[in-house]
């Protein structure tokens, strides 16, 4: 397949020469996903901690709900939010559909279950005495929480990386909620889908390379942290 070879060369050329359209798409991807995960982290980790350490009615139910949501298909999230945000939907007046905000909302819906369910497991690995010691030494609940987070930081890093890895490569929700508008809501996965369907492979391959490198990078970090976590205990 001679055209594939030339498309790959083209892809590398696009990446290397700093093609503005290509790098714009990459920027949108990172901006949207980073915003989504930063918004999701505080409430999700707080909930994860409460699920791991609290005793309140409905705790078990919440845990199983979030573990179920872990495997929620992105297109279902996309569809649900689409209906909510569309003109006739309950939040239609906000005019959020086909904006970056809608994409952020979709990605929040996708990464919160990961952060909560996996964060819950990470917090369960913490020694109960960590919290109790922090409190008895006079720490406020917030400071004690931060202390416990520090104690299980390697596990939590793994959770964050898993969540980020999912939302940055997710195509279904971004496509439906963002609308794949160039220079605005077109991110890496939706661009790949579009370019491929048009038969223009070079940009798709270039973006695929970026995702692949990102996956390698995240995995490398993950192994690094897990290795550290093992030695630390």
């Amino acid at each position: 397949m001679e055209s594939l070879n030339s498309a790959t060369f083209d892809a590398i050329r696009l990446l290397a020469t700093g093609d503005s359209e290509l790098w714009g798409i990459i920027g949108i991807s990172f901006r949207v996903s980073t915003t989504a995960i930063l918004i999701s982290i505080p409430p999700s980790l707080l909930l994860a901690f409460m699920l791991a350490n609290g005793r309140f009615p409905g705790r078990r139910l919440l845990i199983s709900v979030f573990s179920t949501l872990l495997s929620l298909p992105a297109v279902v999230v996309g569809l649900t939010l689409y209906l909510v945000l569309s003109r006739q939907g309950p939040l239609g007046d906000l005019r959020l559909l086909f904006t970056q905000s809608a994409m952020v909302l979709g990605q929040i819906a996708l990464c919160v279950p990961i952060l909560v369910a996996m964060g819950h497991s990470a917090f369960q690995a913490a020694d109960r005495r960590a919290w109790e010691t922090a409190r008895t030494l006079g720490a406020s609940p917030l400071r004690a929480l931060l202390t416990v987070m520090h104690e299980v930081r390697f596990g939590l890093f793994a959770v964050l990386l898993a969540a980020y890895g999912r939302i940055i490569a997710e195509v279904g929700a971004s496509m439906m909620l963002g609308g794949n508008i160039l220079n605005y809501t077109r991110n890496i996965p939706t661009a790949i889908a579009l370019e491929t369907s048009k038969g223009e492979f070079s940009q798709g391959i270039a973006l695929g390379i970026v995702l692949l490198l990102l996956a390698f990078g995240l995995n490398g970090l993950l192994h690094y942290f897990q290795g550290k976590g093992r030695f630390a205990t």
Partner: protein
Amino acid sequence: MTSFVNIQFSNLSKRYRRRSILDGVDFKLHKGQCTLLCGTNGSGKTTLLRIMAGLEKPDTGTISTGLGEIKWRSYRRALQAKIMYLHQHPYMFDATVRQNIAYALRHGYSAAERDKHIDEALQWADLEPLAGVSATTLSGGESQRVALARAWLRAPAVLLLDEPMANMDQESRLRTHALLRQLKSEGMSIVLTSHDELQFQSLTDRQLRLKDGRISTDSIQTQAENVSAFPIGQTARHHTA
């Protein structure tokens, strides 16, 4: 809540599953006294201590101070600043010994003052050589000394210790004993548990025995002669709680 000590726990009970562990415990915490809580394995010593520390909620019972009865919630909130609980195996944060001790420091000090207080605490517990070591690698006896240094630095009104000398060699025991004596002489009320009644005789003002979920004797002991095994410098306190 100024006179936090002289606090009375009445009719405390606690069950786990359907098993009754504590069943009508009456206990008064006297200011400045050292109380030994003994009893066989599983008699509920740790449970009672954790209730006093606010870490475990009793099923029934009342708590009152000189000002009258207080609710469990307000007890928990008030004791946070006043009571300190040391686990049988003290927990060391994943940080250096110095940082572990610094955690106990109250707020409102300048960086220089903090350093000075931490240095004093390290010296007090004879931990200077270990200051930069990762605390998670310490031995049981060394961790116990870090925990005591935290207590010294924090200076709570009440110090609760769960079997502070279990699994310790003779030298560590003497050392711990001396450190506890210091804390007591500074006015801390101390409650400690042990299944060995003799171990703390020279330190304790009274001994209580937990049996069948109740306190069976509440004997006031005449205080034995103070025989400090280890000379310890550094008696002047640098702050008050």
